[in-house]
């Protein structure tokens, strides 16, 4: 009998251990309150989010908002598996490259009926972002914050060369002329960094040359076009003349580090780089809009809040979204200096976050914003694209050949997208 008991206890013990290991986090509110589960990755936004939730709770005292921060490395895997298992968050952060894959699987709620119902005016958000989060003509995410590309420069190096700072009249030609004068080979100073990266580099230049990366219908690639080729030829010219570090140097040492250590006079960078570059260069740091090719263009990317397509608290989640991405929430976000808010006219606080830097440049760049190119299989064609284009920058093949390959591979991947 005694042995029988211990067998039973052993079995119970084993199963308890197993069950506690497998157990998920049960979502139930305290005191029968309704619960909204929110998921995102960046803890730097915690203060702003807490303040916004406080505003929400003043209006909705009976709803509890539970926020989970998952580090970027695990965020997408966790989000995908939890949504597939019907236990995902009600409200979550969405980015451009992943948007179409989620929207086409019905994991994101179409916001258009809710927008209509509450009479929300979506024209207050940057158009490029509204485009980015529109799937089949309907908005699926409410934009939260954004970044654009500008031309950072080192004032000290310009002063030493006796040149005037870049401004909005600059073009590709002006860049080359000035880069020639700023390049100082004996001291290892480059006039310009022609990035081999896409977001800060060739995505902008292709658009400035009048080309595109992905067609509006997301069915064809724009890499194999004369416009795209001219953008790369311009970049390669600057590298060949020694005005810019070459591809191998850029592969090994990130161009941002090179510029931050005062080894380059001009560097196209993202608005979110401002705090880091300011820390490194202090008041020597300046910024201007990107010089124009045939036309002006600046790649804009931003995040939005999405609602789980299967949420049980749709109305409450929608109310929360309107506060987070509404005027009040966006002003809070700007004041924290975290990033440029997506709501037009709320950026005042963000502009003041680095007094010595003219951050208004990034807001002005939104006038000629081009959305960061995305589709359902963004990661897949981007890898193919980067592989070909880096090989060309490294001199292993011509840009003509690389762009042809990149275009063909991207077209083939786009053809397998379902929708």
């Amino acid at each position, binding site marked *: 009998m005694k042995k029988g008991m211990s067998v039973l206890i*052993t079995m119970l013990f*084993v199963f308890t*251990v197993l069950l506690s290991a497998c157990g998920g986090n049960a979502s139930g509110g305290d005191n029968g309150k309704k619960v909204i589960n929110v998921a995102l990755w960046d803890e730097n936004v915690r203060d702003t989010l807490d303040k916004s939730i406080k505003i929400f709770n003043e209006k909705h005292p009976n709803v509890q908002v539970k926020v989970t921060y998952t580090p970027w490395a695990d965020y997408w895997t966790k989000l995908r598996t939890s949504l597939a298992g019907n236990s995902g968050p009600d409200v979550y952060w969405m980015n451009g490259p992943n948007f179409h894959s989620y929207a086409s699987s019905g994991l994101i709620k179409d916001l258009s009926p809710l927008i209509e119902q509450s009479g929300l005016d979506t024209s207050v958000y940057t158009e490029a972002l509204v485009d980015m989060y529109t799937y089949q003509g309907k908005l699926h995410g409410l934009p939260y914050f954004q970044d654009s590309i500008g031309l950072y420069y080192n004032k000290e190096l310009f002063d030493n060369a006796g040149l005037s700072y870049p401004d909005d009249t600059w073009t590709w030609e002006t860049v080359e002329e000035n880069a020639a004068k700023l390049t100082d080979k004996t001291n290892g100073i480059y006039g310009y960094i022609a990035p081999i990266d896409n977001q800060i580099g060739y995505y902008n230049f292709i658009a400035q040359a009048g080309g595109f990366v992905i067609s509006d219908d997301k069915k064809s690639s724009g890499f194999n076009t004369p416009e795209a080729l001219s953008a790369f030829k311009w970049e390669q010219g600057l590298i060949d003349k020694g005005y810019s570090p070459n591809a191998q140097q850029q*592969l090994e*040492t990130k161009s941002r580090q090179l510029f931050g250590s005062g080894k380059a006079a001009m560097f196209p960078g993202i608005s979110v780089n401002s705090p880091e570059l300011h820390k490194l260069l202090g008041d020597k740091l300046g910024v201007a809009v990107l010089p124009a090719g045939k036309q002006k263009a600046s790649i804009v990317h931003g995040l939005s809040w999405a609602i789980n397509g299967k949420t049980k608290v749709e109305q409450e989640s929608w109310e929360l979204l309107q506060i987070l991405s509404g005027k009040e929430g966006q002003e809070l976000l700007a004041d924290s200096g975290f990033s440029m808010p997506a709501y037009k006219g709320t950026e005042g606080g963000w502009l003041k976050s680095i007094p010595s830097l003219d951050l208004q440049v990034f807001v002005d760049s939104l006038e000629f914003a081009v959305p960061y190119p995305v589709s359902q299989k963004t*990661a897949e064609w981007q890898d193919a694209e980067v*592989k070909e284009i880096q090989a060309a920058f490294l001199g*292993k093949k011509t840009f003509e050949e690389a762009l042809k390959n990149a275009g063909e591979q991207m077209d083939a991947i786009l053809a397998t997208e379902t929708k």
Partner: protein
Amino acid sequence: MSSPITVTTKPPEMPKRKVGKLARHEALWGYIFILPVVLGLGLFYMAPSAASLFLSFTSWDGLTSPQFVGMDNFTNLMKDDKFTGSMLNTMMYTVGTVPLSVAIATVLAVLLNQKIRGMVFYRTLYFIPVITMPIAVGMVWKWLYNSEFGLINHVLGVLNLPQPNWLFDEKFALFSIVLVSVWSSIGYNAVILLSGLQGISSSYYEAASLDGAGTMYKFFRITLPLLTPSLFFVLVMSFINSFQVFDLIFIMMDQQTTMLESTRTVVYSIWEDGFKYFNMGYASAQAFILFVVILVITMVQMYIQKRWVHYQ
């Protein structure tokens, strides 16, 4: 119905029925003791492996339900340059790592088997890379390899030797990673071989000395043959580990770069397809092929061990 254990532990005059009951009782306890391991293996190894095998015949994005596609994943893999390239890289990596690591570890084990002061310290020293996190190893070596600011090229520069771009030149990249993995695996292999060395009876050496055998003769005629069981184990494990390498490449290479063409391994490719593109079926098919390759290589090793492994 009696098992050998019960026959030896119980007096012969005990009735057979009672003995049988005890045997059953003991068997029950045996099952209970292995239950946690069996459950753990079943839940975390067997079930996922079976699921993965099933998924390899489907197309699954992790969101919608899997679609059965038959052999499509496998036929596509044979045409996929990325996969065949990664298989080739993995083989080159293995051919580079395993012999080098095992050879150095053997010599090191012999050296560490001597009786000198502070031997524990040296043994610890060589084992440290094994217990160091691969992330830390990768990050530190990435800096050592830096072509402009790295220690390795600095030393080469002082000696007036060529300074290659270790990680960002496709002629060197895989070789550079092989060096790091050899460095970090020597310690583990050496410890296994060291325990093998200590199991060799000193009487063989005494007898050989009396017959006038030299150091090299003793090494090749006594040490090496008697070390073959340990060498066999080390070889099998090294092959398996090499075929599954992922972390060093993940840390030392950018995630979007043409350099991956010459450094991408099969497991890296599985990760890319599975957790970057979310083509779970396609990734599972690669995992299954890798499993078969490792299985075949291990079976071949088991088969040819008869010719060179000497058990005492």
